[in-house]
């Protein structure tokens, strides 16, 4: 992180609202490891789950609701299922608490705008958890693009695919009519955020996916950027892709593994030019790929922004623009059926 973001500030008492898998694996360890966050309260409608995490992380203040939260904390992290983001976010912001909300900020632009309005009304800081922005390799890539170290960007591709194994505590991703369940908004909100952050505005978008009901599990997206660059994105929860980013510049290529630290710079002939170690430049330790440390960076960025009245890494308006892009993508979905699914089965005298 840039050093000015780490200006000393008063630590902030934080509650985590939602005690699912991401809180156990990331948010709680992240706050505890952060410089300026103090984890004091855990909230979950499943009080036993909150108690279990409270015991694990040494937190005695566990609750099954957010009533009166402002009496004991100054800010909160929202980590609840997507479809209740708006309700939880507006409640927390309405109590005058600063909020770091898990991505996606909301399930629609309209939801996001209501959340942003709630933040404005209460005069609190609203940040959105876009963890990839804190990955050192991604920050280095941004510098390479901004400084035109390899010329201008001609094309890029993102592959993000793995067999879904996240130990989520509720099956909301499988529930029909639940907004925010598909891969376009799930993984896509990360990738679309990075696309906007790295390459600017999208001029045109085409999407093919296995569903247009909002629950797509596999999607391929073709982008034309206003810069003229072309982009290709593959998102999947049902196949393991060789995840990472590849960028072709006018004078070379860059390959970035999904959470790796090494950024490979190559000439147009594919020969390696250099392997960059972002941690040296950005003072992020070699285990920057670990979720806890990334979460800690994110928490510190949030607390510093709230304390000093600065813009956090991803504010509400920024996160809303990403959801706007997700909505554009969802509106363009063309359903593609695979031959192994549509091939008929012979049924004798059936």
């Amino acid at each position: 992180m840039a050093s000015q973001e780490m200006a000393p500030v008063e630590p902030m008492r934080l509650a985590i609202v939602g005690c699912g898998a991401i809180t156990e694996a990331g948010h709680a360890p992240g706050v505890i490891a952060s410089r300026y966050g103090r984890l004091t309260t855990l909230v979950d409608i499943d009080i036993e789950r909150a108690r279990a995490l409270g015991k694990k992380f040494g937190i005695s203040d566990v609750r099954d609701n957010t009533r009166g939260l402002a009496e004991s904390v100054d800010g909160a992290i929202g980590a609840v299922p997507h479809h209740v983001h708006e309700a939880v976010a507006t409640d927390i912001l309405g109590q005058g608490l600063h909020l770091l909300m898990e991505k996606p900020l909301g399930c629609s632009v309209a939801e996001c705008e209501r959340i942003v309005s709630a933040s404005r009304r209460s005069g609190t800081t609203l940040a959105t958890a876009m963890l990839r922005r804190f990955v050192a390799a991604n920050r280095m890539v941004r510098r390479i693009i901004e400084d035109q170290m390899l010329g201008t960007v001609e094309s890029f591709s993102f592959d993000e695919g793995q067999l879904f194994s996240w130990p989520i505590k509720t099956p909301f991703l499988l529930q029909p009519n639940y907004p925010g369940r598909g891969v376009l908004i799930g993984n896509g909100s990360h990738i679309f955020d990075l696309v906007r952050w790295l390459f600017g505005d999208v001029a045109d978008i085409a999407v093919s996916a296995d569903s247009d009901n909002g629950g797509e599990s596999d999607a391929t997206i073709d982008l034309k950027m206003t810069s003229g660059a072309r982009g290709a994105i593959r998102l999947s929860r049902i196949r393991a892709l060789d995840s990472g980013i590849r960028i072709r510049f006018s004078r070379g290529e860059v390959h970035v593994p999904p959470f790796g630290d090494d950024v490979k710079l190559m000439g147009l002939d594919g020969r390696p030019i250099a392997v960059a170690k972002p941690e040296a430049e950005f003072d992020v330790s070699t285990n920057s790929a670990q979720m806890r440390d990334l979460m800690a960076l994110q928490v510190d960025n949030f607390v510093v922004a709230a304390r000093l009245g600065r813009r956090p890494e991803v504010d509400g308006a920024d996160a809303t623009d990403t959801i706007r892009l997700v909505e554009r993508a969802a509106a363009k979905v063309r359903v593609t059926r695979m031959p192994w699914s549509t091939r008929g089965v012979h049924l004798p005298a059936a």
Partner: protein
Amino acid sequence: MTRFRDLKVFVTGGTGFIGSRLVEVLRNQLNADVTVLAHRTSPGALRLAADGVKLDFTPIGDADGLKRALAGVDAVFHLAYGKFGSDADMKKTTIDGTTAIVDAALAANVTSFVNVSTAAVYFGAPSGVIDETAPRRKWGWTYSDDKLAAEDVVRKAHGQRGLRASIFQVAGVYGPWGETFVINPLTIMRRGFAVLPNHGLGVANMTYVDDVVQALILGLKDEAVGETFIIKGPGRITRLEAYRQLEAMLGYPAVETASTKDIKSRLGGGNWSAMARIVPAAVAALQESKAVKDAVRASPIAGLARPLYRSLRRRGRSGIVKGSGKAFDRATPLPRILPPPIMVDYLSAEVEFTSAKAERVLGYTPQIDLETGMGFTREWAEWANLLGPRRT
């Protein structure tokens, strides 16, 4: 046979390999009204959700909940089995789960209960052609043993309580999304050489998943009630022939054979020194599995798991190569990956199953030969990124 458009179908195990293909065909080809029992957010469940399939989240051990879920259902396809956790956990899901679903099916007075089992229950039969009259036995493979016990639950419910049940013992099922005969071997072969016992002469009884689905749907016929059917694909396919098809997909040599005795000798008969070789072999097999890597990466214990994984991976590399003897070329750096000890005899067996009874009674007609089925599988495997770059 019932008109499918009017048929209310409940499928357990519908998020798995065979079950998800069955669901596709029931819904998209036959327009049946299908509900699938789902218990976790797996890739298979996500695929079904994307396709708009109705999912029911009743735990398979919740007898009352299942009775509610099956109310008004005409037919049940029961494919679920325990795949995760301890042997006791798996037993609970497979056997107790079958009891619960059978009770619910009886309460709902279903017209068909199609129970999917495995032809592995005939393990130990002498070489030659085997039909449903061969003795079934438990032999130590949890999956097969529990499926056998589940068969008995279904048989008893038919015999004593009138459940209109049939049992389908499927063999060597492969195709898109298939783990045992597609994903797992390809994963091993991308990492090194799969070593087949009995010089690859074991009979694979390969059956393309669509032929299994054909048979299961025929299981709705009245003639199926009270009967057990072995289901296999066309021809007599050896293990080596099946693996050669996968090798051809990859485009480089990835299969070796050895005598069963050789392999058993290398595995060491279950003592601790053998375990020391088996563990690295298993880890080596998993190295290419992105699912494993992703699971480790996403795991709440990633901080602890990663060094352990790396350590095991190193052991996997060195263990295999150092452990190689004359039969397994020491000079080649790629690992030779042996089958798990319990599967050596199973993979060696020259037992060919016959589907003659299903053909005679139900009109089952296997359609997809190995080459065709592997062609279909290949187009999926390419999409699934399973053929990957050549090993280095």
